[in-house]
């Protein structure tokens, strides 16, 4: 087993384990250990985790507060604090694990046991990153060419034009990639 596959497997086992642990102290310890393992990068890692999970956790906390206020002092929501702390710690731990471990994993090498899966993922990733950059350019172009705030009508027209462009581009790229792979004999010995 190569290093990347071992790391990915270790990450998956840790995720399942974290989803089975219900002790808030254990989850907090796990979170501290993951952050500490980042060394000098612990601060930026914690900030990234908070940014990624903050909206979800804030929505859950707001919902809980709303229910507690509706239920009044006698409601059972008042006792839900530890449960919400446990949920928040689990979500933070899982996000920290993902941001700590996954950047060190080469997906192409970790998934090398299946040539098809590796090839589809690598192709999809390469296209996705290129498409994302182009999408950003399109959005900047819309902002630059619109003197006022973009309204719903303009946004729908721009969204539709962008979607149509990317769908046409996807069709074209699929054809080009197929020809390139065919020319290199890829489909002769596909698993």
């Amino acid at each position: 087993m190569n290093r990347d596959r071992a790391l990915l497997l270790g990450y998956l086992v840790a995720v399942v384990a974290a989803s089975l642990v219900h002790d808030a102290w254990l989850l907090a310890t796990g979170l501290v250990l993951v952050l500490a393992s980042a060394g000098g990068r612990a601060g930026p890692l914690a900030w990234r985790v908070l940014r990624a999970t903050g909206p979800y956790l804030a929505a859950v906390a707001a919902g809980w507060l709303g229910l507690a206020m509706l239920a009044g002092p006698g409601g059972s929501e008042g006792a839900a604090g530890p449960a919400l702390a446990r949920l928040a710690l689990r979500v933070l731990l899982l996000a920290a694990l993902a941001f700590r471990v996954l950047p060190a994993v080469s997906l192409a090498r970790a998934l090398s046991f299946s040539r098809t899966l590796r090839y589809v993922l690598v192709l999809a990733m390469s296209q996705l990153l290129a498409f994302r950059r182009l999408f950003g350019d399109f959005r900047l172009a819309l902002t630059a060419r619109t003197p006022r705030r973009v309204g719903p009508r303009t946004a729908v027209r721009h969204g539709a034009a962008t979607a149509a462009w990317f769908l046409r581009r996807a069709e074209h790229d699929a054809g080009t990639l197929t020809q390139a792979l065919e020319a290199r004999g890829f489909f002769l010995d596909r698993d």
Partner: protein
Amino acid sequence: MHIPDGFIAPQVYGPAYGVAGVLWAAGLRRLRRTLEPSVMPRLAVVTAAAYVLMLVAIPLPGGTTAHITGVGMLAALFGAWQAFLSLSLVFLIQALALGDGGVTSLPVNALCVGLGGGLAARAGLLLRPRAVGVFAAGWLGAAVPALLVALVLGWQPHLARDGAGQPLYFPFGWQLTVPAIVLPHLLVGIADGAVALAAWRALGRGTP
């Protein structure tokens, strides 16, 4: 609308992996049955397009914006199976490479958004005239996954509780998840439908 890691109980994500695994294998077999070499490159590139469609933002009243799901458009143009597989790949890439979404919620997201949304969009496409069908496909592709996600999330407190009776995973039941998730997506669905219709017109009304 997709669910992050930590909200779903193992009693749900375990079986969901089983069901999704069978459907992934069936979907791939179905796509490969065409024996066209372009099947896999097409899957990869449509996956990238599916990811980009999710980035399209429409301003909503009140100064906020909503991201369309693009599920209806994908299902209308490429079929429900392709939409399911492409969105599954998007969720896999988001979970493992982009640090978004999650591994435990992946099969639930794929089944609710990819399969549920894809099938609902194909059903909407049966409506006539064709323009109404395309709009309905876009709307249903946002509304139906929202309902399915709300039902799955609202199920969590009924499934797993600690000794004190407090939920171990997502804490709110259906009475909160259904209105909180579905109502905004009825509005997002209108944007989804409008973009699907306009994109269909821009593509020259060739497909679907």
